Structure formats: C-alpha cells, structure tokens
C-alpha cells in the first residue's frame, strides 16, 4: 500500500485530502506545517508527498520536498499553489516534482495526479469523479 504524506496549513484542505486519499486506499499521514511534515516523514517514510507551496512556518513545500528527497531520492512529489504554477515551477529547480497543481484544485485532478505519480492510473475513476 502506497504511503502518502499530505502537508497544508489550511486545516480543512489537509483533512479533506487526507480523508479522501485514505478512502482511495492509500496509507495517509497529514501535517499542518513543514516542521510537522519533516517529523512525521521520519517514521512514516512516504512514497509520495502532496504539499502546498506556501506554508506558515519558515520552510515551504519546495524545501520540504528537497529535504525529504535527500533522504529518499525516489520520493515522488506533487506541489500545489494558490499563486499560479509558473512561479512554483521556477522555484522548484533542483528537486523532482511529479506534477504541479493550481488551487483551487478538485479531488479529480488530485487523484489523477496521485495515481499517475504512483504508477496506477485510473482514468475511469477520475472520469466518473469529474462528473
């Protein structure tokens, strides 16, 4: 079972994403800050990181990705941003990001990105959810 770490300082977002991904059959941990994410990743050992770019503490999603990929280079990452993805892409040089998502981002886009990142595409599922 793939392990996903979700990081977002917006409580509703992080909780909803967490609940949704669990129902989709993933093992999920959620973190409300970069610090919390780094701590939880130690024991959890995620395969995929789903993170907001801007976080309320002094590290952002890019830095969290960078830190985690140093320990686990095969860690996949999906980053999303409320400021558009152009800036985010520019800032993300030097790390491996599987997909950039733009806020507001629906569950369909999210699960599509997650499935692709973890190598189990489910277009039918995404299709049905989008409608």
């Amino acid at each position, binding site marked *: 079972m793939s392990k996903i770490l979700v990081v977002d*300082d*917006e409580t*509703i*977002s992080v909780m*909803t*994403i967490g*609940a*949704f991904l669990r129902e989709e059959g993933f093992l999920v941990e959620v973190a409300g800050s970069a610090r919390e994410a780094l701590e939880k990743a130690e024991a959890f050992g995620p395969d995929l990181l789903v993170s907001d770019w*801007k*976080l*309320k503490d002094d590290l952002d999603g890019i830095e969290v990705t960078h830190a985690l990929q140093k320990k686990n280079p095969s860690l996949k990452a999906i980053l*999303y941003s*409320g*400021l*558009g993805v152009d800036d985010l892409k520019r800032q993300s040089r030097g790390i491996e990001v599987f997909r950039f998502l733009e*806020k*507001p*981002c*629906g*569950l*369909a886009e*999210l699960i599509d990105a997650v499935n692709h990142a973890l190598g189990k595409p489910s277009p039918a599922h995404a299709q049905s*959810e989008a409608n």
Partner: protein
Amino acid sequence: MADAPVGKKGKTLSAKILLVDDRPDKLLALESLLADMNADVVKASSGREALRLLLKANFALILLDVSMPGMDGFETAALIRQRPKTEHTPIIFITSINTNETHMTKGYSLGAVDYIFTPVVPEVLKAKVAVFIDLFEKNETVRRQSESIAEEAARKAESLETRLRGLLNTLNLGVFRATLDGELCEANPAFFRILGARNLSDVKREYLAVICGVPDRRNELDGSTPAEDVHLVDDDGTDIWLSLTRTIRQDGKNDTFVEGIVEDITLRKTDEAKLQQLNETLELRVRERSEALRISQEHLSRAERLASLGTLAAGIAHEINNPLNSILLSAEYAMKHKDPGFVAQTLKAIAGETRRCGKIIRGVLQFARNERTAKSVNDLSKVVAHSVDLVKTYVRTPLKVDLELPNREASVVMNPTEIEQVVVNLVKNAAEASPSGAHVIVKIQPNGTRVKLSIKDHGPGIDASIKSKIFDPFFSTRTGSGGTGLGLSVAHGIILEHGGNVSIESDLGKGALFVIDFPMNSSGTQKAEGAENSAVKVVDRRKPIAEGNA
C-alpha cells in the same frame, strides 16, 4: 574839505553853486569869494536866468539876491520851489536890506534855509556854503551808492534769472505756471517736450485741463499736492504718464496760479506694466506647472495604487485560493459521501471559508477605494467601547481588555464605522499576539487639541526589522492562519485619512504599544469639565469585558 568823492563809475562829483544877482560886481565879488571852495560856481543875472539854469543841472546851493528888478528873489524862490526837481534845493537869500521880522518870515516861508546880509562877511559865507557843499556831496554819494546798489541788485537779479532760465531750459522736469482755468502762462522746454508741443500755444488744451484742473483745491493756497500719476493719451493712442506735483499760489495782484512740475514717467510705467505682465505670465506659468505637477502626482499616486494593486492581486490570489481550495475539496468530498451529518458539517466549513473570502475582498476594496467617506462628530470613547464589544464576536483566543476611558467626551470628526474597523483590527491583533490570559490595555487620553488612543498587548513584540513593513498591504506574520495581511494597511490608511498619526513602541519580548493620535473636534472640547486626565473610568481588570471562544 574832504576830497571829492569818486563814484563807482569813476565820475568825479562836483557841487554846483548858483549865484543870482542883477549886479555883475556883486556876482563877481561872490564868485571870487567862493573861488577856493570845492565847487563850480554858476552865475545868473536874473531870476529867469536862474530858473533856466536850474533846469539843466542840479545845484548844491542857490545864493539868491532878494532885491532884483523885475522878478525879485522871493518870486524866483517861489517858482524854484514849485518845480519838483528843485523843490528841495537849498536857497540862501542875500540881502542888503536891513532885517525886519516880516521880511525874514517871508523868505523862510518860501523855503529859504538861511539869510546872509550885505556886506557879506567872507568867513560866514564860506562856512555856510561849505556846509551845503558837504551836504550835497554826501547826498550825491548816497545817491550814487544807492544807484550802484540798485544796479548791482538788478545785475544780480538778471544773472540769477539767466541762471534759473538756463537751469529750467536744461532741466528734464517740466516746470509750468498757468491760470486755474488752464491758460498756460509760462513753461520750460522740458514741459513742451514732455507734452509733445513746440510752444505755449501749442500745448493741447485737454492736457492742460488735466494738468491745471484742480477745481476742488482752489482754496488751498500755497499747499503742494502730493505727486500724483497722471495718464494722458496722445493723438496716435500712445500713453503718456506724468508724475505731477502742483502748488496753488497767489501773486502780488491777488491772481491765483497753479505752478507745478511734471516728470515723464511713461517709461517707468511701461516698465512697470511689462513687469506686471511678466509677473502675471510667471504666475500663470507657475500655476500651470503646479497644475501639471498635481496631475502628474495624481497619476503617480494612481500608478502607485495600481502597483500596489499588482501586489494586491498576487496577495488576493493567494489569500482567496486558500479558502477556495478548501471549499472545492470539501464540497466535492461531501458530494461523494452524502451522509447528512457530514454534509451539514462540510457546508458549515464551506460557509466559514466563504466568509473568509468575503472578508478578504472587503479589505481589498477598502484599500483600493480612495474616496472620502462621510464623517461626523463622534465620541471616540463610545466608538472604541463598541469596537471592543465587537471584537468578542471575532476573536478566537481568550480576550481580556482593560478599557480606560476619560470622563469627558473625546470628540473626533470621524467615520465611526472606519474607526471601529481600526480599533477592532488592532485589538484583535493585540489579543491574538498576547499569551492566553494576558490583558490588552486600551486607553483614551485627551491632550489639548489631540486625543491619544493607545492599545497595548503583552505579546512577543514587534521586531525592529519589520516595524516599517507592518502597514504594507499583505504584510502578515500570520500568513496561513487567518491573517489577510490587509488589516493594518487598511487601518493605517483610515488613520491618516482622519488626520491622525500612528506610532509603534515595541521591544521584543515586552509587547507592542500602538499609539494613535487624532485631532480633537474643537467645538467638542468646550464640553470638557475639570482636568483632562483627572478621572479615568477604570474597568475592573480582573473581569474581562470581552471574552472570545477558546
């Protein structure tokens, strides 16, 4: 005998003595007696001859024989006295007739000054004659002297007049004398030159009417009028400007004249007009430039606002997208689940997030709007107290506020809703910065023409490095935890717009103190009674007046 006086013109004066006797021997005798006198002796053998000689010359003395055939001495004397020229010529009668009173009285009544009786005593005659010669010479000297004095005076007067004329002729100022009716009596060349005339009769009557026309001042004799500027217009429309000083004077014959001086100040006036025009042009240009500057400043401030709107746009995107993301995710998730309890919970969350969006938008609008809002006179204490109550409904952390209000009205011209917004914002910030259970102190202190509103928290304080940025739009230390980053910049704008100032005193670890001072409404201060800060209503500090939900 003195030397013959010499006149100024070098003429030797000599006294003439007229001897009148019908007898040649007596004439000769007298002549020889007087030969060594300093006088010319002229002889006449009759009264008639004497009268003829008297017409030709002035005599110092007439020695007149009383008894002569035909016209006697008395008759001759009477005729001599009748002539103005000889009216005062001294006459000494010579008579051989023995004196009696009647005779002598007649002689004296005819103007005789003396009598000499024959036989003539030479010493007596010579002594008497010498007196008259001396008298004549003295008179003559006096006459000559007065003549020469008069001549000298006349010469001096003439030379003075010549010099004055010369001066008047070369003077650049026009000098004139005219009757009050505008008849020019005399004037110097400059006067004509200034008025574009050749001579007295050539000066335009309308000019003279202006220059001499002082009807209301006819009674002010010898009073100089202050120099006045007179404007004339030439035939070809050219302006002539004169500075005119006039005096009204009466001459010996009681005729009244106006005398005066005119100075051509056309050039000066023209220069003044040019200068005035130049000044006006300059002023106009300054006004135009100021206007242009104002417009470009307006553009600049609009550009600045647009630039901050650019910053705003990014901030808005970020701030709005966060709740939107939550809304979208939770809405889709609830749609999948359809459990009524869960859906209701999600809808509540969505509503909360939507409100958050609305709040952000309101803040943005407030910031972007630049219009002046309606203001009225309000008591700052009431508005602040109300605001503190309002915070209760907003703030999530436990809130304890000490509100210290003056016992007098603190009248401020304000938009109460805006001021409320400021106070709510600052108190909420203070509350959120303070550790749980700490007090926020809100104080209002009127001080002369200003009133101070201070809000003190016991939070971590504000780092010096961010003090200057604290009022910038979207500057927030609480990004992602509900802060929009707009609250303080909007508050700052409102404070400035109310003529207020805001300052921050803070040391790290010792809390922050926001001090806002507003101008007091002057009419409101009249309600003040007693000392300004004497009595302060102190709210019970143990009991918070506003307590948020934990």
